[in-house]
């Protein structure tokens, strides 16, 4: 985004539902992405992320609910690439065209000057591969070109599905800077990714889905704080009741432990007030998005159940 003449549109998903046969892919999903922020869209495989993004961008039709960009459906937008840049699948780029032809065609479609193609090719770091055909690109290069196609119309909204896939560490750093500067300039970014560390380093807000439903939405700090304090009590049921009574979010962990969205000292005060005997209390070691993700989506951390692979000895 190079200009900020008007605020970027908000992305709104309202009560969205979509089923394939009897299987619901998206089930009453609602969330928002606001201008000036990078929103991470997280969920395990089959959680409904890609279906939601396809509905948002007019590639699929919802059974119920709406997905709007600035209050309008994607298909109603005139030259949508001028307001929303989308990269869902880098393999959808035609392999028979060169990098520069791909961008020139996109620029022409969106009514952008032809020089914009060279400019974007430089931005995505593919200037040296301008004359190379896309079929000869590595996956990382395709990702960069896909992001270039998304940026060609100088949009104020970016929707990217797994943009870091195939990128080398330098490419990931480049993408992180790109998204940050885009949001800092007032743009709206919705980023779907499996790479939790990458998401944690990039996003401001999180939308976590599982089984097609919204599990949690909010600022990254707030959500990661959920796993901030680990607590166990002599009477686990009484502890849960007390937390419910005070409206404090918690997630059950292994061995009856709860991850609570309170600072340890506040948890101690609450236990005192409720006459609870705590058997352990403290900040959880290694708290972060990965733990939040596994606890919110109900997926078990692989390391917790799977034995470490045995390496052959020499």
């Amino acid at each position, binding site marked *: 985004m190079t200009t900020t003449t008007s605020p970027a549109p908000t992305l709104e998903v309202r009560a969205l539902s979509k089923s394939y046969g009897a299987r619901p892919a998206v089930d009453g999903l609602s969330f928002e992405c606001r201008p000036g922020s990078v929103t991470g869209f997280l969920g395990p495989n089959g959680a409904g992320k*890609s*279906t939601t993004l*396809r509905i948002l*961008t*007019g*590639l*699929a*039709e919802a059974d119920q609910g709406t997905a709007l960009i600035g209050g309008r459906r*994607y*298909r109603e*937008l005139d*030259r*949508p*690439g001028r307001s929303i840049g*989308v990269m*869902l*699948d880098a*393999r*959808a*780029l*035609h*392999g*028979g*065209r060169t990098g520069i*032809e791909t961008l020139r*065609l*996109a620029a*022409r*479609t*969106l009514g952008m000057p032809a020089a914009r193609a060279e400019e974007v090719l430089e931005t995505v770091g593919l200037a040296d591969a301008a004359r190379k*055909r896309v079929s000869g690109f590595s996956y990382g290069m395709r990702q960069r070109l896909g992001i270039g*196609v998304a940026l060609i119309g100088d949009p104020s909204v970016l929707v990217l599905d797994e943009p870091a896939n195939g990128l080398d560490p330098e490419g990931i750093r480049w993408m992180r800077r790109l998204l940050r500067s885009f949001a800092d300039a007032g743009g709206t970014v919705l980023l779907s990714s499996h790479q939790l560390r990458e998401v944690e380093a990039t996003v401001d807000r999180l939308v976590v889905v599982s089984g097609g439903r919204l599990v949690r939405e909010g600022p990254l700090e707030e959500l990661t704080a959920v796993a901030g304090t680990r607590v166990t009590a002599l009477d686990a049921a009484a502890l849960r009741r007390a937390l419910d009574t005070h409206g404090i979010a918690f997630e059950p962990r292994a061995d009856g432990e709860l991850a609570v969205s309170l600072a340890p000292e506040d948890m101690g005060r609450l236990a005192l007030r409720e006459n609870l005997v705590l058997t352990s209390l403290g900040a959880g070691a290694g708290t972060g998005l990965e733990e939040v993700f596994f606890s919110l989506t109900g997926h078990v951390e692989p390391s917790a159940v799977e034995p470490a692979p045995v390496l052959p000895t020499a």
Partner: protein
Amino acid sequence: MRPDIDLRAFLDTRGAAILLTLTLLAVLGFAALGGLLQPALTPDGSSDLESTVFVLTLPLMLIIPALTVWITAGEWSDRSIQTTLLQRPGRLGVLSSKAVTALVVFAVLVALTIALAAASTWIGGELIGQRAILSSIEGVMTTQLATLSATFLFSLAMGVLLQSTVLGLVAAIGVPFMVGTAANLAAAFGAETLSDVVRAVDLTSAAVALAEGTAGAFELLPLGLLVVLPLAVGARRWLHREIG
């Protein structure tokens, strides 16, 4: 509707460059074969335009389906339809635009074919043989042009209906071949019922009859069954098919 974009999108791929080069070579080769060699094969040493175009029709019966199906269905097969529809979400507009693009390519190809056929017929008849017969252009416009138009329309319908390059090509080339074979068998065995059934799906014969002005209501049946119906079903599928 942006046929300029679709034409450019078609032309600037490597596959299209190869296909168009082969098309040009085939048209030039068959034009030479038809126009220049005719005097050596005819008793009066003449070269007839209609015969030259007939020879050229043989490769065009393969080239027209290839180009038309590629333009209409190619992006579905290579998945680049996703990029197209993200930039141009009006699906009906994209479909119409691709149909217009295919029509433009077909018209240019046919015009080039007739021009080359006329040139090679004149060279063959006047410079190599005894005489060139260019007055048969009327027969070209009714029989050959109608045949090529039927091929184009059926290919367009198959591309729109099947939205797959491979399936579209198999149907666009295979079905007319099967209908032609069935028509010959029906005629050979004198089976009237089979003959009527074949007539109902013989688009080429119906197109020629329409062009000659001898068509009845029955000749509209192949047009409805093989062009209008698949186009309508394909357009509906095009509008609602999920991409991803």
